[in-house]
């Protein structure tokens, strides 16, 4: 059976709301409008306005209210129309949600989810394209998940809602409409995926490629191309950015001896930097080549289609980097 990521997220919300009356959804346009990206379609009708709450466009206010409700013991799911707008509420996510359990020595737990599309979409320009994975994942107290497939979306969102800690759940607008096959097991309402565990999407021998969200698809396509040229790439879908599954990553690199990290966000202090460092710390002697980092270009997102394409990783970038890691020669291009 096939299912879009949108349907996967929608069904996950639906099932968890149906299973636990403490779960509720709040955010801009999540109710009557059915969600800016229709993730919450049908939920208002099914669960009523007490549990599906349209908010004003006031992220600091409604996020703080969501966190207060979690202090009280409810299990809020707060939708950001996109994660760019979470910056208006980031003090609450960090100082009110992430740190409370620690500061209170366990008295004030914050069982909730912050979710919405993250990172680049298509043609939406500099203010609507930022990836927040590395920022949130730098903060102890938060868990940060990022699904790729429909199975990821269902299993991780359901796990996030059931989790007793604050989870930042980073979706991708361009994946919402994509269809993926889903197993019968994944369709069961009891299905969840473990938080903190990466998934080896494709086994390989010669080079490890780590990615999350949309870039997993690109990495898989790159692996297809590489396999035609005799390079067997292992593709790791991180799923969880915090906790980061250092074990799976290091085990893979110890096998392949080569690493390419892929992400859409800005490179400096990014997810790739952490993965590279983790491998240097734990598997330095296994590395046969410098780690290759593929990331968003180090510029704000431009609007023009040709520049935008240059600003985010393409499949050929991953292929090229993997070949470099495997010491295949590649022609050096001139600086732009």
């Amino acid at each position, binding site marked *: 059976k096939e299912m879009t990521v949108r349907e996967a997220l929608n069904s996950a919300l639906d099932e968890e709301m149906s299973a636990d009356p403490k779960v509720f959804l709040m955010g801009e346009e999540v109710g009557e409008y059915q969600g800016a990206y229709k993730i919450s379609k049908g939920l208002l009708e099914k669960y009523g306005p007490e549990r599906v709450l349209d908010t004003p466009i006031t992220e600091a206010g409604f996020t703080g209210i969501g966190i207060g409700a979690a202090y009280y013991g409810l299990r809020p799911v707060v939708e950001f129309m996109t994660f760019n707008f979470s910056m208006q509420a980031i003090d609450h996510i960090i100082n009110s949600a992430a740190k409370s359990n620690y500061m209170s020595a366990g008295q004030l737990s914050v069982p909730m989810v912050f979710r919405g599309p993250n990172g680049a979409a298509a043609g939406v320009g500099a203010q609507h394209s930022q990836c927040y994975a590395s920022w949130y994942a730098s903060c102890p107290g938060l868990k940060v998940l990022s699904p790729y497939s429909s199975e990821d979306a269902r299993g991780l969102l359901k796990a996030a809602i059931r989790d007793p800690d604050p989870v930042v759940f980073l979706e991708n607008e361009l994946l919402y409409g994509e269809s993926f096959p889903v197993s019968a097991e994944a369709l069961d309402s009891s299905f969840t995926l473990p938080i903190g565990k990466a998934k080896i999407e494709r086994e390989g021998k010669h080079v490890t490629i780590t990615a999350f969200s949309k870039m997993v698809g690109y990495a898989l396509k790159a692996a297809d191309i590489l396999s035609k040229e005799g390079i067997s790439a292992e593709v790791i879908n991180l799923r969880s950015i915090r906790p980061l599954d250092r074990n799976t990553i290091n085990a893979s690199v110890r096998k392949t001896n080569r690493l390419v990290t892929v992400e859409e966000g800005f490179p400096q202090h990014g997810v790739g930097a952490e993965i590279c460092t983790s491998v240097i710390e734990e598997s330095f002697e296994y590395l046969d080549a410098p780690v290759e980092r593929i990331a968003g270009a180090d510029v704000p997102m431009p*609007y*023009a289609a040709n520049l935008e394409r240059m600003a985010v990783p393409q499949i050929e970038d991953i292929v090229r980097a993997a070949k470099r890691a495997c010491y295949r020669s590649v022609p050096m291009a001139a600086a732009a």
Partner: protein
Amino acid sequence: DEVLTIETSVPFTSHKCEPPSRSVQTTPKELMGFFQDMALMRRMEIAADSLYKAKLIRGFCHLYDGQEAVAVGMEAAITRKDCIITAYRDHCIYLGRGGTLVESFAELMGRTGGCSKGKGGSMHFYKKENGFYGGHGIVGAQIPLGCGLAFGQKYTKDETVTFTLYGDGAANQGQLFEALNIAALWDLPAILVCENNHYGMGTAEWRAAKSPAYYKRGDYVPGLKVDGMDVLAVKQACLFAKEHALKNGPIILEMDTYRYHGHSMSDPGSTYRTRDEISGVRQERDPLERVRKLILGNDIATVAELKDIEKQAKKEVDEAIAKAKESPMPDPSGLFSDVYVKGYGTEAFGADRKEVKSVLP
């Protein structure tokens, strides 16, 4: 030119100030100009709609048709030394500030000829030399920015003011209250213009605001509620506001207006409001039709002459689109330009840093 005195459609509603007179002075020439400007804006937005559907414009695209009287009336009251800043619904504000159609369409299509060289897109038009500071994509954020422009004007003793435009949805943002308080404490020449088109995306104003009396926001700052579909009322209110702001500091103008299109191109605009509501506004309050009637009623031009202006607008728009299409996509080197004014020769990297990098000048 002969001076006409015309009554505004409805009285101003005022808060903590004496409202200006309903009798607005204008001239035949000004009215003809209003008609021409609004017809051009209307045409531009309709063309943008088509270009979007033809996939020549990407991403978000927020159209202004229905709200033209605000842009045009405001410009009639102020100079290009005054500043304007607005949100993402910015095409017509840009045009009002002296931007060109070609640069608009080129920007919308992501071409070098665009007002932001194709790097900004629909939400990020600017024309700083004429006092237009964008084009801002984050709801409400332009409000403190606008107050900051007003701070600059006061600091440099320029005797000019800033008009900060925002929607009814944005009016609930906390940063409005923060900025307004500071503007009031510091007597900044800041005019907050709430373009109340009654919906923030799919949310009716009363669902988002316990008190939708946006001209009273903050309570302690004077405000005026204005028929934003009546270009002369807008002009009168803006004249009044500018004078007020220079003397007394901030003031709020709530413009009662309407957007015909959906929120952006992905919104059909018909699930949260009735077709009757939309056509009712079109028939009874359309800003362009109101001016047409004034022109005809005062024998300033004939029906045919006005039709000609509209045809001319269409022609100008079509020509601009054709020209914009000829403008090339940005050169790849543009990826790395303007990250900084001064890059100190440091390296910036592309997605594959071993393949694409650039030295920032």
